[in-house]
Structures are given as structure tokens and as C-alpha cells.
């Protein structure tokens, strides 16, 4: 058994070195993911049933409020569709091409890493939908990117991964930099981001919205990343600004995400 263990370890190292997974890992994934998927479904049903039993009254009130909100949003949507049609007509007359919104694929998270660093989640794609490596994953903001696809199941590298970095832009001032995760001592998990490599005397203020810059060749531009909640000077160079960013995405409560194909 020790020989088998050593062989598997070497096999894994060689496969990872070539950015692949070994055959035993592939088999284990094919067996393990359906279990995780089934457990997640069962958890969801139990959670929903529990909620409906213990919070029936508040759920009814919430349902009424959401219906009213839905009516309002439907009206807003109709108005926006009208604006869109008018805008398109104007652009057609002026000869401008229109950027069509890219349709995302709704997916749900079936497993997440629980060891030391929550850097990846496993998602399951609906039937008859395909995703590929490098696709962008979004929710309220940027979540990460697909790094490994096995049929309908894929692994997503989160932007709070310790080794992750992305090109970012301050939406208000246009200053660009690199966004990296930063661990909070209180939790130990990288639930905040830090924007570095900003130009000297960069104009960054608390409340500024940070988006992707598109200059890293990985993420397209203008995807919301987070909001600046602190600005300080670099400990290395006093004129260099470093911004702390709170991501738009709550990585703890993440259940469903959108996968946007990389064009």
C-alpha cells in the first residue's frame, strides 16, 4: 500500500506539473462530484423545508414584498427595453455598432475547498450547456474563472485565492493597478482585496468602485470587482498608494454563480 501511495503521489505531481490531473484523480472526481451534487440538493431541500416551517409568517410577508418589487422591476424592465430600442435606433442611424450583452450560464456550487485557504469552488452546469476553461464566473461582481472542466462539473479559481492577481481600474479616476487578496487576521481567510502598483499620487478614494481593467489578458474590462474601503500609503514607498477593497461578492454565502463564456 505504501508503494501504491508513493506511486500515486508521484503520478499526481507529474500531472500537476503539466497542468493536468492524473487518471486516479479523474476517476475520483467522476465518482465524488455526483455525491457532492446530491448532498447539496438534499441540503437545499432540508434548508428550504426548515425555513418554511420555522419562518412561515415572515416568509409570507417577504413573499408579498418581493411580489411588489417584482411588479416594479417589470415596469422598470419595460421602460429599459423602450430606452434600449430608442438607443439602438439612434445608433443605427449614426452607424454605431451595438455591444450586445453576453448571456451567462446559471450554475450552482456543489463543493468548496475547506482546507486552509478557500480558493476554489466546484460548480455544476445545467444539462445541454457547455463551459470551457478560462470562462469568467460572476455573481454580484467578479467571482473568478473556470480552471478545470470535467463534463458538467468545473472548478473555479476564486479571486480571493492567495496566488490570484488581476488587472484593475478605478472606475472614477481611471487609475489602474493590480488587485491581490489579503488575509484578515480575524478570519485567516483572504476575504479582502488589495489594489497595488498604482501610479504615484493615484487618485483613489473610499467608496470608489474598482472594475477589471482588461489589461491582464485574463478578464475582460469593466467587470465590477469591489469597492474601496481604505486607502493607505505603501510601507515601501510613501508616495505609492495602496487601496483595500471589499469585494462585491460574499464568498461565504455563495450558492449560485453565472458563467460567462470568454469571447
Amino acid at each position, binding site marked *: 500500500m505504501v508503494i501504491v*501511495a508513493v506511486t500515486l503521489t508521484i503520478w499526481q505531481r507529474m500531472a500537476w506539473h503539466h497542468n493536468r490531473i492524473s487518471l486516479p484523480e479523474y476517476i475520483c472526481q467522476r465518482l465524488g*462530484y455526483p455525491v*457532492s451534487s446530491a*448532498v447539496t440538493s438534499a441540503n437545499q431541500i432540508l*434548508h428550504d423545508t426548515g425555513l418554511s416551517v420555522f419562518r412561515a409568517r415572515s416568509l409570507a410577508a417577504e413573499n408579498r414584498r418581493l411580489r411588489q418589487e417584482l411588479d416594479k422591476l417589470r415596469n422598470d424592465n419595460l421602460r429599459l427595453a423602450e430606452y434600449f430600442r430608442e438607443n439602438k435606433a439612434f445608433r443605427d442611424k449614426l452607424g454605431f455598432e451595438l455591444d450586445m450583452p453576453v448571456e451567462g450560464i446559471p450554475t450552482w456550487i456543489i463543493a468548496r*475547498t475547506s482546507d486552509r485557504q478557500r480558493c*476554489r469552488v466546484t460548480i455544476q452546469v445545467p444539462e445541454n450547456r457547455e463551459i470551457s476553461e478560462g470562462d469568467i464566473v460572476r455573481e454580484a461582481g467578479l467571482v473568478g474563472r473556470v480552471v478545470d472542466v470535467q463534463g458538467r462539473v468545473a472548478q473555479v479559481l476564486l479571486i480571493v485565492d492567495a496566488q490570484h492577481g488581476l488587472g484593475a481600474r478605478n472606475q472614477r479616476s481611471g487609475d489602474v493597478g493590480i488587485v491581490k487578496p489579503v488575509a484578515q487576521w480575524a478570519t485567516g481567510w483572504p476575504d479582502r482585496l488589495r489594489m497595488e502598483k498604482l501610479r504615484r499620487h493615484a487618485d483613489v478614494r473610499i467608496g470608489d468602485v474598482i472594475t477589471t481593467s482588461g489589461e491582464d489578458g485574463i478578464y475582460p474590462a469593466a467587470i465590477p470587482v469591489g469597492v474601496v474601503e481604505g486607502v493607505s500609503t505603501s510601507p515601501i514607498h510613501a508616495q505609492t498608494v495602496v487601496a483595500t477593497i471589499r469585494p462585491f461578492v460574499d464568498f461565504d454565502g455563495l450558492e449560485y454563480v453565472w458563467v460567462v463564456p470568454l469571447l
Partner: protein
Amino acid sequence: MFWAYLTEFVLAVVLVGWQYAWPTWLRWGEQPPDLAVVLLVTVGLTRGPLDGCWSGLLTGLMVSTLGRIPLGGLFVSHMGAGTALGLLGRRIFPNRVLVAMAVTATAVVAMNVLELAFLPPPHLGPWVTGTVGQAILSGLMAAPLFAVLRALFNYLPHPGE
């Protein structure tokens, strides 16, 4: 022996798959219960060191695959724990649920300490909180799982038969 090994393989797949899909609102210190260790404790205490080592190999492989963690340290901790628990099973009361709960909680702490050498955490404070939380949750989960798994293993031929 074939059916016993196959059963342990299926159990490793199911329990580790369950562990990784454990709901976030039921975690303690961000950690789910270590169901792989629950399996190791049950197999080790009821079936001996060889089966414990085999279960360690399987659970190590599953945890590595689903958690994207390098295999080396996991094999050392899981196979070592499985074998040690198998040897321990001959010296304590292996049929008592309370013993299984205590052994599971202790094994979780011991294995996390052992894995420190292979994968040091970025901060010690959260690691301690997570390890303690995981040990308590695992101990609690060991009670029903140990009873069910022990009953299941009673249907399988015992090692040496």
C-alpha cells in the same frame, strides 16, 4: 476481503463527497466535520490495521482530489492514522460509541497537527479555531455514523476469516 475493500472504497467516496458539500451554515470555524476521519476510526477500530491503512489510502486520495491538495502529507496522516487506530482497536473498547467519539476528536487534532508540517496555515489563530471546531463536529458526527457503519461491517467477513 474483496467485498470489504469495495465497501470501504464506496464509503470513502460517499463520506468525503458529503464532507466537501457540507453546508456553510453548519460549519464550525469555517470547517466541516472530518467525515474521512470518522470512517478511518470506524474501520480501524472494528476491522484492524490493514483495513485502516487501506481506508487511509482511499480517503487521502479522495480528500486530495476534491480539495485539490497535494497527496504526500495526506497519505502520511491518513494511512498512519488508519494503521494506528487499527492497532489501538485491540487495546481499547472498540465497540463503544463514546470511545469512537473521543478517538475521532483526538484523531482530527493529531492529523491536523501532523499536516502542519506539509501545509502550514497562513495564520495560527484561525487554524486553532478551525481545528477545535472540526474536532468537536467530527466527534458529534461520529456517534451516529459509527453506529451505522459498525452495523454495516458486521455483515462483512472479518479480516482473517
